[in-house]
C-alpha cells in the first residue's frame, strides 16, 4: 500500500463498511424490488476484431445492487466488454441477460443501461442542466417532472450551483459529476462506468471514489466499474473481476483476490509481492519442494503437480519478516538476499532484495526501520502456508 492519505483512509473506512452493506437498509431493498430485478448475466460472450479475440467466451453474473470492478491492464478488453453489455457493440457469440430478459439483440437505447464514458462524452452544445435532462427528454418524461428530477440529480453530485454553466467551462472533476448525474437521473437498471476517474488527479480521484461508492449504495444501483488501477478496484468494489487478454482470471471479493490470487497474473497485477521462478523437485503429501535461485523452498499446491514442472512462487510482502534466530524449518521458508533498496513509507518500510531475471524480493516491515543497510545480507522468512504456487503455462 502506498503512503496513506486521508482520502485513502476514508476509502478504507468505507471498505470496512462492507458488513453494513450486507445487512443493507430496508428502504434500499424495497426500492429495488419495486423496480424489478436488475441483475446481469453474461453468458459465453465473445468479440473479435479481425483475428484478435478481444473478449473470449466470458461468463459472469452481477447481483442486484452489487458494485463490481472490471480490473485489467489496458487493452485487455474492458471497454469492449462494457460496450457489449451496453449494446453499443454486437457480440459474435453469447448472450446478455439483464433482469431476466435476454437483451442480446436489443439496441442500446432500449436497454436502460447508462454508461459513463471514459471521456465523459458530455454534449458540448448543451449546458449542464440540459445534459442531465437529455435522457429524460429522450424518454419523453413529462416536462413538469423533468425539472425537479434534474435538480435532484444535480444536488446529488453537488453541482446545483453550476446548473446553467456550459459544460466546456467545467473542470475534469465537475464534468465527471455531470456525467454521473446524467447517467443516474434516468434510473438505469445497470450503470457502467469506464475508467471514470482516470483523468483526475490522485486526491480528487480518491475523494470521488468514496463519493461514488456511497452514492451507488444509497440508491441500490447495480454497477460495473472499469479500471486499470488495482488500488481503485480494491477500494471501490464489492467484487473484482480481474481480466487478462479477453478472459476473466478471477472473480472474487477484494480480500480474497489479494490473499489468494488465482493465478500468477493476478498475483502480479493486484498488490505487491515477492515472486520467484522455480522448478518442482519433489512432491510428497501435498508438499512441493521447489528449486529457486534462492535455494529450496516449500509450498503446498492445491492441485496435483508433477516434479519437473516450472512454477512461480509468491508471497505477500507483509507476510515476510526478518528471520528469527531459530526457525522451524518444516513450517517456514527462508531466503537470504542482499538489500538493494530500503523505502521508508512512514507506517511501514519496504525492503527490496537483489534479484535476477523477473524474480522479485520484497518484504514489508511495520514502522520506520532505519537499521537496515544497503548491500547488507538479510535473511527473510515466512510461513510455508502463506507461500502461493502457480504452474507456469508451457
Amino acid at each position, binding site marked *: 500500500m502506498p503512503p496513506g492519505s486521508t482520502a485513502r483512509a476514508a476509502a478504507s473506512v468505507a471498505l470496512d463498511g462492507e458488513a453494513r452493506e450486507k445487512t443493507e437498509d430496508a428502504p434500499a431493498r424495497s426500492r429495488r424490488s419495486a423496480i424489478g430485478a436488475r441483475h446481469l448475466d453474461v453468458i459465453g460472450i465473445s468479440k473479435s476484431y479481425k483475428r484478435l479475440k478481444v473478449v473470449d467466451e466470458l461468463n459472469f453474473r452481477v447481483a442486484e445492487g452489487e458494485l463490481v470492478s472490471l480490473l485489467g491492464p489496458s487493452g485487455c478488453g474492458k471497454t469492449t466488454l462494457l460496450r457489449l453489455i451496453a449494446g*453499443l457493440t454486437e457480440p459474435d457469440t453469447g448472450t446478455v441477460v439483464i433482469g431476466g430478459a435476454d437483451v442480446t439483440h436489443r439496441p442500446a437505447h432500449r436497454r436502460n443501461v447508462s454508461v459513463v464514458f471514459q471521456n465523459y462524452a458530455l454534449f458540448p452544445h448543451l449546458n449542464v442542466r440540459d445534459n442531465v435532462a437529455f435522457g429524460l427528454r429522450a424518454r419523453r418524461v413529462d416536462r413538469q417532472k423533468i425539472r425537479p428530477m434534474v435538480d435532484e440529480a444535480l444536488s446529488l453530485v453537488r453541482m446545483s450551483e453550476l446548473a446553467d454553466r456550459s459544460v466546456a467551462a467545467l473542470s475534469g472533476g465537475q464534468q465527471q459529476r455531470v456525467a454521473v448525474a446524467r447517467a443516474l437521473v434516468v434510473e438505469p437498471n445497470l450503470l457502467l462506468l469506464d475508467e471514470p476517474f482516470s483523468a483526475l488527479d490522485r486526491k480528487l480521484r480518491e475523494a470521488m471514489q468514496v463519493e461514488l461508492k456511497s452514492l451507488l449504495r444509497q440508491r441500490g444501483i447495480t454497477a460495473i466499474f472499469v479500471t486499470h488501477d488495482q488500488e481503485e478496484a480494491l477500494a471501490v468494489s464489492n467484487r473484482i473481476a480481474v481480466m487478462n487478454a479477453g478472459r476473466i482470471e478471477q472473480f472474487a471479493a477484494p480480500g480474497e483476490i489479494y490473499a489468494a490470487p488465482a493465478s500468477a497474473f493476478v498475483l502480479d497485477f493486484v498488490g505487491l509481492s515477492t515472486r520467484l521462478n522455480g522448478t518442482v523437485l519433489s512432491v510428497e503429501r501435498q508438499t512441493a519442494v521447489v528449486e529457486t535461485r534462492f535455494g529450496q523452498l516449500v509450498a503446498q499446491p492445491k492441485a496435483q503437480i508433477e516434479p519437473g514442472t516450472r512454477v512461480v512462487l509468491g508471497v505477500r510482502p507483509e507476510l515476510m519478516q526478518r528471520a528469527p534466530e531459530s526457525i522451524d524449518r518444516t513450517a517456514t521458508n527462508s531466503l537470504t538476499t542482499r538489500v538493494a533498496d530500503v523505502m521508508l513509507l512512514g507506517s511501514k518500510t519496504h525492503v527490496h532484495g537483489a534479484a535476477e531475471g523477473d524474480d522479485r524480493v520484497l518484504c514489508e516491515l511495520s514502522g520506520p526501520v532505519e537499521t537496515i543497510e544497503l548491500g547488507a545480507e538479510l535473511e527473510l522468512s515466512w510461513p510455508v502456508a502463506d507461500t502461493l504456487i502457480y504452474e507456469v503455462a508451457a
Partner: protein
Amino acid sequence: MSVVSTRYEAPRAPWLDRFVLLAAPGLMYLALVFALPLALLLLKSFQNQDGAFSLAAYAEFFGDPYNLTVLWRTLRVALLTTLLALIIAYPTAFALARAQGLAQSLLLAAMILPLSVGVVVKAFAWSILFRSNGVLNDTLKWLGLIEKPIRMLFTETALIIGAANVFLPFMVLPIYAVIRQLDRSLPEAAASLGASPMFRFFRVTLPLTLPGVIAGSAFTFSLAISMYVIPSLIVGERQQTLSMLIARSYLFLRDDQLGSSISAILLAIAVAVVLGSSWLAGRVAGGRR
C-alpha cells in the same frame, strides 16, 4: 492582452503579431486584385456619365419589373441549388467521414476530381443527358413512363440540378470536416441514455454538425448567386440571372453605371450571406463555450 502567460509573452501590439505578418502577402494581393477594383466599381455605380453623384442606375434597375424578375429568379435558383446540394451532400459527407482506407480515398477522389473537369465540358455533357432525344428521355420512354419527350434542357430545373452538381464539393467538404471532428461517443452516449436514432440525429448529430452545414451553404449560395457560365450554357438568354444582366450591361449596352450597380447589388447580397452565416455559426458554436 491582460493575461500574462509564462510560456508565451504577448506582443505589445497584438495586431503586429509575427503570425499576422504571415498573412501580409495574401492581404496585399487581395487588396490590389480584389478590393481596389471592387471599390472603384462601387464608386462608379454612384456616378453618372459626367462623374457626378447619382442614384440613377439603382433607380433604373429597381424601376424595371424585368430586373426584379431576374433578381428573384437568381435568388430562387441559388436557394434551391443550395438546398439540393445540401440534401445530397449531408449523407455523402457522413459516408466520406466514416469510410476507411481505400474506400475513403476513392470517395474523396470522386468528390474532388469533377472539380478538374471544366464547367463548359460538364454543361455539354449534360446536354447529352437532358436533351429531347437524350439518355434520360430515351430511358423514360423505354420504361413507358412518358410518351413524348419532356423538355429538360433550358429549364430552371436543369439549371438547379446542374449547378448543384458543380458546387457539391463546396458543400460536402466543410460538412465532412466537421463530421470528422465529431466525437463518436456523443451519439453513443445519447443512445445509452435512451435516445432513438431519430432523437439522436436531431438533438445531437445535427446541432453539432450545423457549423459545417452553415459554412457549406454559405459557400454554395455565394457561388450559385453569382454563377454565369452554367446558366448561360444550360438555360441561355431565355431565363437570365443577375450575372448575365451584368455582362449584358457591360458588353452589349455599354452601360458601365448600370453594370456596376447590379454588381454592387449582387455583392451586397453575397456579403450579407457571408456575414449572416458567420454570425449564425458563431451563435451555434456559442452555446458550446
